[in-house]
């Protein structure tokens, strides 16, 4: 990431380059990596069946180039790193999916193209994302009703109702719910920040409570729904986002610590009273005890990761297929097996660069709504990446969430591109000097 230095610079508001040269250079690098990866996969002994989906990879690559030129044409001023990073991660995801389940590669292409379409539509038709602020309660209601609807009408998979099944494709509303909730939180915090900001004394405490309590209720409700739906990963994710936003807006370490303490207590209660939580924690502590049963997935993933070693088995040379959910939640295990520790660290680093750009957009934005929104989205993205990767390598208990941009799956990819569009607009606000 040589160009990172140039764009990021030391100044708070980077200069706008006509023609987006950094973006172009990075896309060129990605093109080379893509060609190399395609070559390597074809050299390995993988079999693709009737239809070789290599062409779909080229379509994805071309689409990113097209977006690049479109952004130049529209004289967009958004951060030049967002597009190449999203391109790299989603192309990497496509390569891994292609390598693991060739028959899913074309579908993954469709998801990526759909995500890009959402990105472009948003940029073309939402002139100013700040209108979101005016609809904050709509987002709240939308989030809650989506979540409730899926809990009632959703299709049950592995004992949890998280999906709407539309026959041709299924849709996981929680991916959008998390964005909606972040928008709401950002707007709510902006509106009420003065109150939250006051020093705590006898006069202000009542007022403060009046604003914190609905927030807590909302948050508790969201967590309850998620816990009832056994979607622990998403609960953890919202918790991280909420706490981070709360910390930055109130700057009250005590409250934040209280929030953490409450959650630890809650987690303990979950452990005591929900058998599936207990199974999950025990599986995490000692997966070898149930290596054929509930520990199977994590044990198989550890074998895969160990097989990767320092340099990796090589693309197409590993044997990660024995791991359940390898191309969705567990895709990072496949990456670690085939690309090794080096590859894993590079991808972790690229995620961190993307996260840094998000936080940077928050820091350089000029109004509080934008700052909170960018921070909220950044926190959520960062927490998601951390939670799923740390779960994959057994650092923390496993939770079933996707690795952004990389995992196979439509809802996740489209939602991530939607988030990227919002971030792109926030970052371009930084340059409107």
């Amino acid at each position, binding site marked *: 990431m040589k160009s990172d230095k140039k764009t990021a610079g030391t100044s708070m508001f980077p200069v706008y380059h006509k023609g987006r040269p950094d973006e172009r250079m990075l896309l060129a690098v990605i093109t080379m990596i893509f060609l190399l990866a395609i070559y390597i996969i074809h050299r390995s002994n993988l079999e693709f069946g009737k239809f070789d989906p290599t062409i779909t990879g080229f379509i994805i690559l071309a689409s990113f180039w097209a977006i690049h030129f479109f952004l130049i044409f529209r004289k967009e001023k958004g951060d030049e790193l967002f597009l190449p990073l999203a391109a790299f991660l989603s192309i990497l995801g496509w390569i891994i999916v292609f390598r693991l389940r060739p028959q899913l590669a074309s579908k993954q292409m469709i998801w990526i193209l759909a995500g890009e379409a959402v990105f472009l539509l948003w940029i073309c038709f939402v002139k100013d994302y700040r209108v979101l602020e005016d609809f904050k309660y709509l987002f709240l209601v939308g989030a809650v009703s989506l979540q409730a609807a899926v809990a009632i009408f959703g299709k049950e998979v592995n004992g949890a109702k998280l999906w709407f099944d539309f026959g041709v494709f299924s849709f996981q509303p929680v991916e959008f719910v998390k964005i909606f909730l972040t928008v709401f939180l950002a707007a709510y915090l902006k509106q009420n920040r003065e109150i939250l900001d006051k020093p705590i004394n006898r006069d202000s405490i009542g007022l403060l409570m009046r604003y914190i309590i609905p927030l807590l209720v909302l948050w508790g409700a969201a967590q309850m729904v998620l816990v009832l739906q056994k979607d622990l990963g998403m609960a953890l994710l919202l918790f991280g986002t909420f706490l*981070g936003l709360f*910390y*930055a*807006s109130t*700057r009250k370490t005590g409250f934040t610590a209280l929030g953490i303490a409450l959650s630890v207590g809650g987690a303990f209660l979950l452990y005591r009273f929900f058998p599936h939580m207990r199974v999950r924690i025990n599986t995490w502590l000692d997966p070898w005890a149930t*290596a*054929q049963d509930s520990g199977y997935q994590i*044990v*198989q993933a*550890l*074998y895969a*990761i*160990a*097989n*990767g*070693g*320092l340099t990796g088995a090589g693309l197409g040379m590993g*044997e990660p297929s*024995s791991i359940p959910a390898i191309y969705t939640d567990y895709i990072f295990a496949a990456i*670690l097996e085939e690309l*090794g*520790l080096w590859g*894993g*660290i590079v991808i*972790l680093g690229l*995620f*961190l660069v993307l*996260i*840094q750009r998000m*936080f940077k957009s*928050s*820091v350089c934005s000029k109004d*509080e709504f934008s*700052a*909170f929104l960018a*921070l909220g989205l*950044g*926190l959520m993205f*960062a927490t998601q990446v*951390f939670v799923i*990767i*740390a779960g994959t*390598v*057994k*650092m923390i208990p496993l939770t079933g969430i996707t690795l952004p941009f990389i995992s196979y799956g439509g809802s996740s990819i489209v939602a991530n591109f939607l988030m990227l569009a919002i971030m792109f607009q926030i970052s371009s606000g930084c340059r409107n000097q």
Partner: protein
Amino acid sequence: MNKIREYTKKLFRLYMILFFILGMYIGYIQVAKSGEFMSNTDNPRNYEKMNLRGTIFTRDGKPLAISRDEVKPSGRAFPEKNIYEPYLGYLSVKFGKGGLEDKLDKFLRFSTKNTDFIDYLMRKETKGENVYLTIDPRLQQAAVKALGERKGAVVMMNPRTGEILALASYPSFDPDKLDKDWKKLTSDKDSPFLIRPVNGSYPPGSVFKLFTLASCIEEGVVTPDTVFDCSGDYAMDYELGTYHIREAGGAAHGSVTAVDALVHSCNVGFAQMGLKLGKNKFYEYAGKFGFTEKPDFMLCETEPGFPAKDVLTPTQLAQVAFGQGELTLSPLSIALMTSAFANGGKICKPQIIKSRVDEKGKVVYKCEAEVWKTPVSMETAKKVRDAMIQVVERGTGTAARMDTIKVAGKTGSAENPFGETHAWFTCFAPAEDPKILIVVIVENGGGGGKTAAPVAKELLDLYFSKPGTQK
């Protein structure tokens, strides 16, 4: 606004630290722990590396478990089927491993432990060790044949060294059909996976009288000539009424010496002996004979079911003294107890690995006899042994008598909730210079002298038919 920026930066720093820790952790799993995960036999990546797994041999070098690439799906072949199961174990892609394949896994499997740093980074693989068991194939085959299709177990060991020479267990399983029959095997109420000679829990019945006699003699409360009265019914008063101890078959032995009590397996006599010894001493000797702990043996998974001290009320004590009551022991525990009388009061640690040889042919382990417990003195052991000789000469164990060789033994017919009594027989021979110790149990087989002793006799005949089987 500036404050928010400041806190946003703080949050980013927090995430940087979290990601850094995550990166370090991935490194730890992927490089430091890699060798451990990679060499695990359950790792499907290893099935193609099965050629690196060591072989299990009998003591004279007959291969029992070999790795062959062409064997599907597990890569492990068991050339001597239906003889060495279930203790030899299994290795299944789907269901993991069991028995010795599991217990010896850390020696058999290939390793990536390299002293050379470059080899370490490249994770160079070293072939697993070959393991030679103490098992004698001739005796093993004979034991399996002698037990036949009767539920039960046979232990044969060298009482002088603790080397296990044969372990028969019925029912068992076919390692080749394991994957297919798994559900049936695991739900079978006859537990084909249970290594009965080692992990079977049985009431020992009268074979346990050896323990009571030895403890009493050692403690000096009884001599071989102490006389006991047996009217066939011994009544004991306790808080809920009167408890009667009766002889099997309603016999009455009259006045018997301690030796004759053993020879005729007199329950009443032994109940009195146990009460004479007292609860505390009784429990102390149980510890000395190893009945209160798991034997120090790799295949052992079951704790001996010896009643806790506070459970030993006088009525319980009287029952346990002749091997009934709340007492369950494995055939191995009985074998170890018997070995004390064969070995001058010393119990040797049971051994099943004779040696381990690494890839380069270097012997990395060789078993040596090791004393595990010394429950009684040599004099006491001799007295008990002499009584055991009498059992075979003129008592309940005459079915095991040999023409030229003196056999010392004890029968048992253990009452149990599953029907007919379990038939027990424990013996060693030659009595003066023991070379072989045999324990037989036939589940619900009836009388020990009638059912179990002939099995032991068959094995003794075979053992002594060709001298010098033991190297």
